[in-house]
């Protein structure tokens, strides 16, 4: 990739890996050998996020060029463009892929917003109309995902508060507790395989595990560096955190090559078990293959690293 990575997503079958970066062109790769399949051309700005439908036919991307686009995964063809008045950021397909949530950044006088769009079965029927728009003066929203049964939308961002919204009325249902919650911008959010709990990562150098339905804080993982990306293993009770450095500390950081690492924690005991080094810059994206046997990391250095676990990984005991 030519630019710093921003997001990584595997498809449901675990054979494709989609990457987004600041270089405008999301790319799709074979997940097992890292061979590049193709790129999706059309955006004019950094691409922040993407999601792929359950049948791996459609891809949705959110970009700083104030649009979100629907693509045909196989052909690379642009199916539809949703236009907004400010840069688009997070995107997520609902269960069943009939709806999508797209967030937009605060821009000039506009506050940040969460848009729900209907996704038509046949792209020629697609309209740009929003089913629901939720506005709020909460700073930039970095991630938004659907809750169980599409009944709720969960958002998290710059103001360090996690919010659960009713997906039909747009009413705010729950907010994360300020005392126990994150203290700085939430940069990343990752749901468990069954959606019952999710992990958030923040610049406050910690990651937290929450119950999706009650927004109760279950676990906290503490590291030494601001967290930019999080992922949960679908197979074993491990959590991975990736991060970087404060921009202000650039000149004092360890510049020894390849020392940025993805840190593994025991999900239940909250203890660090190890790390995988190799990136030359802060890690911005992490994703586990749904089969739990490999994971990928994307960094500020423009590299996507694919890691397959050796058998010992599955025997780790603390």
């Amino acid at each position, binding site marked *: 990739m030519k630019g710093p990575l921003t997001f990584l997503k595997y498809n449901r079958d675990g054979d494709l890996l989609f990457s987004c970066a600041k270089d405008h062109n999301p790319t799709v790769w074979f997940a097992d050998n890292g061979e590049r399949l193709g790129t999706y051309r059309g955006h004019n700005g950094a691409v922040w996020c993407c999601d792929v439908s359950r049948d791996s036919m459609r891809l949705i991307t959110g970009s700083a060029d104030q649009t979100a686009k629907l693509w045909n995964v196989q052909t690379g063809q642009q199916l539809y463009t949703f236009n907004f008045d400010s840069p688009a950021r997070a995107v997520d397909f609902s269960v069943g892929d009939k709806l999508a949530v797209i967030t937009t950044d605060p821009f000039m006088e506009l506050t940040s917003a969460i848009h729900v769009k209907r996704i038509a079965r046949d792209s020629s029927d697609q309209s740009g109309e929003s089913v629901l728009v939720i506005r709020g003066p909460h700073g930039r929203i970095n991630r938004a995902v659907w809750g169980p049964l599409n009944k709720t939308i969960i958002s998290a961002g710059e103001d360090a508060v996690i919010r659960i919204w009713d997906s039909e009325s747009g009413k705010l249902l729950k907010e994360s507790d300020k005392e126990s919650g994150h203290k700085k911008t939430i940069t990343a959010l990752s749901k468990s395989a069954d959606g019952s709990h999710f992990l958030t990562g923040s610049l406050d150098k910690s990651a937290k595990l929450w119950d999706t339905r009650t927004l109760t804080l279950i676990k906290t993982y503490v590291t030494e560096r601001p967290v930019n990306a999080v992922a949960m293993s679908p197979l074993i009770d491990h959590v991975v955190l990736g991060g970087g450095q404060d921009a202000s*500390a650039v000149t*004092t950081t360890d510049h020894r090559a390849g020392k940025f690492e993805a840190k593994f924690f025991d999900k239940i005991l909250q203890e660090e078990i190890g790390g995988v080094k190799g990136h030359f810059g802060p890690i911005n994206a992490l994703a586990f293959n749904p089969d739990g046997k490999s994971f990928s990391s994307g960094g500020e250095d423009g590299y996507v690293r694919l890691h397959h676990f050796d058998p010992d990984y*599955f025997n780790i005991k603390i």
Partner: protein
Amino acid sequence: MKRLPSWELIFLGLDFDSISLPPGEDFGIKSDDEDIYQEDNLEHDTGFGNIVIVNNLPVVPREKFEKLEGVIRKIYGQIGVIKEDGLWMPVDSDSGKSLGYCFIEYNTPQEAELAKEKTHGYKLDRSHIFAVNMFDDFDRFMKVPDEWAPPETKPYAPGENLQHWLTDAKARDQFVIRAGSDTEVLWNDARQSKPDPVYKRNFWTESFVQWSPLGTYLATVHRQGAAVWGGEATFNRLMRYAHPQVKLIDFSPGEKYLVTYSSHEPSNPRDANRVVINIFDVRTGKMMRDFKGSADDFAIGGTGGVTGVSWPVFRWGGGKDDKYFARIGKNIISVYETETFSLIEKKSLKVENVMEFSWSPTDPILALFVPEFGGGNQPARVSLFQIPSKEELRQKNLFSVSDCKMYWQNNGDYLAVKVDRYTKTKKSTYTGFEFFRIKERDIPIEVLELENKNDKIIAFAWEPKGHRFAVIHGDNPRPDVSFYSMRSVQNTGRISKLTTLKGKQANALFWSPSGRFIILAGLKGLNGQLEFYNVDDLETMATAEHFMATDIEWDPTGRYAATSVTSVHEMENGFNIWSFNGKLLYRILKDHFFQFLWRPRPASFLTPEKEEEIAKNLKKYSKKYEAEDQDVSMLLSEQDREKRRMVKEEWEKWVNQWRQLHEEEKLERQKIRDGEASDEEEEYEAKEIEVEELLDVSEEVLSFDD
């Protein structure tokens, strides 16, 4: 002058009571309020604070009055502005002669104080030495009752055992850390690999904290002065010392005295700062002596700090008895003793051009350095003086010297003088050492030059309690580290080199306080490289790293070392605790980390012979502790296992809850997906399986007894 009854009456010892002081005086009764210190208030409410009384003047007849007055005016007019009609010399009405004393009134109490300071003890001539007092002092003295009443004996209230921390059953050491606005004292519990809290307090100090040299007290610094804390189980405030705007403090080695320092902006911006130094008795809080003057007076020699003064200004000598303290002045060394807090023999030691001095850590011996002057006519020299006799014990002239630095070994056995010499061309310098063997007869001196004379000396350190020293030398980014001993195999009176380690990433040396082991550290630009080296066996025990470490400190027993990253850096603030041989025991991260200080221990009561015996028979003594250690680690694993089991159980509950909900919603999900196959079938699941592994097969033949 205020209207008073006539002066004669006062000094005939009568009627002092007719001087009425304004109501509301509270001399010497300090407010008990928590944070209100009685300010160093020179404005006495009497209104007589700017009057001094000068005694021991010559008694002269009327004819000489004018002349005497003139002399007095000349002396006292230089110090401040004498008020109009402010000089009064009382006269004996019978004899017509002066009574031998006079009153001088200034406009401000500061001038009066200064006059007292500067002229008390002034020798007008051999038989007339001025005795100067503040007017207000007399009032105090007059209040002393005529009848002596024996002081009440208060019932004995035993004080807290301030040394209680030394009796810790697990023989742990304490340390204090400052992070953010918190100051915390903790035990280093190496067995449990974590710190154990003792006491924590928010805003305990307003700037920094400092332990007393034997660890009895923790000192904190505030706007109004300093305070010390200590106690048996917790930290109570034991004493306060008033010193407004105090900036620096220093304890005497035996913890008897506390020296405090402040520097104030002068009224005339072109003058140097005004410096105030107070010396307090630690236990009673009484101020024993104060020193006031301009920063210029205190800044001779050494390198100046922010205020141009190198701290501590007063250096203590004579070991733990706290008998002497000295400071350097222009061409003098002023040595004071603590019986009377005045100069020994009432005068300073005159040493022309003296630049640097240091005490032996254990004996009352002063080492002085005088640089070269007179354009090479007078060579530089290092001299050793015995105190209090001021006898010069040893001297060595050094030629072509540009600079020197003195290092004492901590038992006072040796003094190393690092000498930078000009080459013949005077264009560059090379370094050598002069070693003084203090405890040997006639103090022999030995000269040492490095193998490569031109190597720059980056660091030098004596082995504590030992006969060895380490030097980092060289010009590359990876200098060499050499170890020497003051003894050699053939001859205990000759220095020998033990080894040179080449190309090390080190720029600082940290010996263990019990000697034998040393950390070669690369601080600052070298990013925290650490090498734990055994000097007995001359081998490296471990190499490690504490990225961005700024400070390293061994615990007082030499068992553990702490490395820390302070808030000089923005990230990675916190500290690491290592075992003496370089194993990382635990790591604590704390943002805005300012200080890490081990609590010092008092010296061991064992004789050196007993210590040697224990070192030889260490195995015998350590057996019983090994058993204890085993027990503790078993207990720990038990506790750990229990904790983990509970955490896992709690998690199981969550997972079961979720599974239930997930099941219930299964049907709905299928609907949303237009009847697509439910996800359960295709989800991966991790199962724990037991695998039997054959480790070893061995045959053993047993013999039968019939």
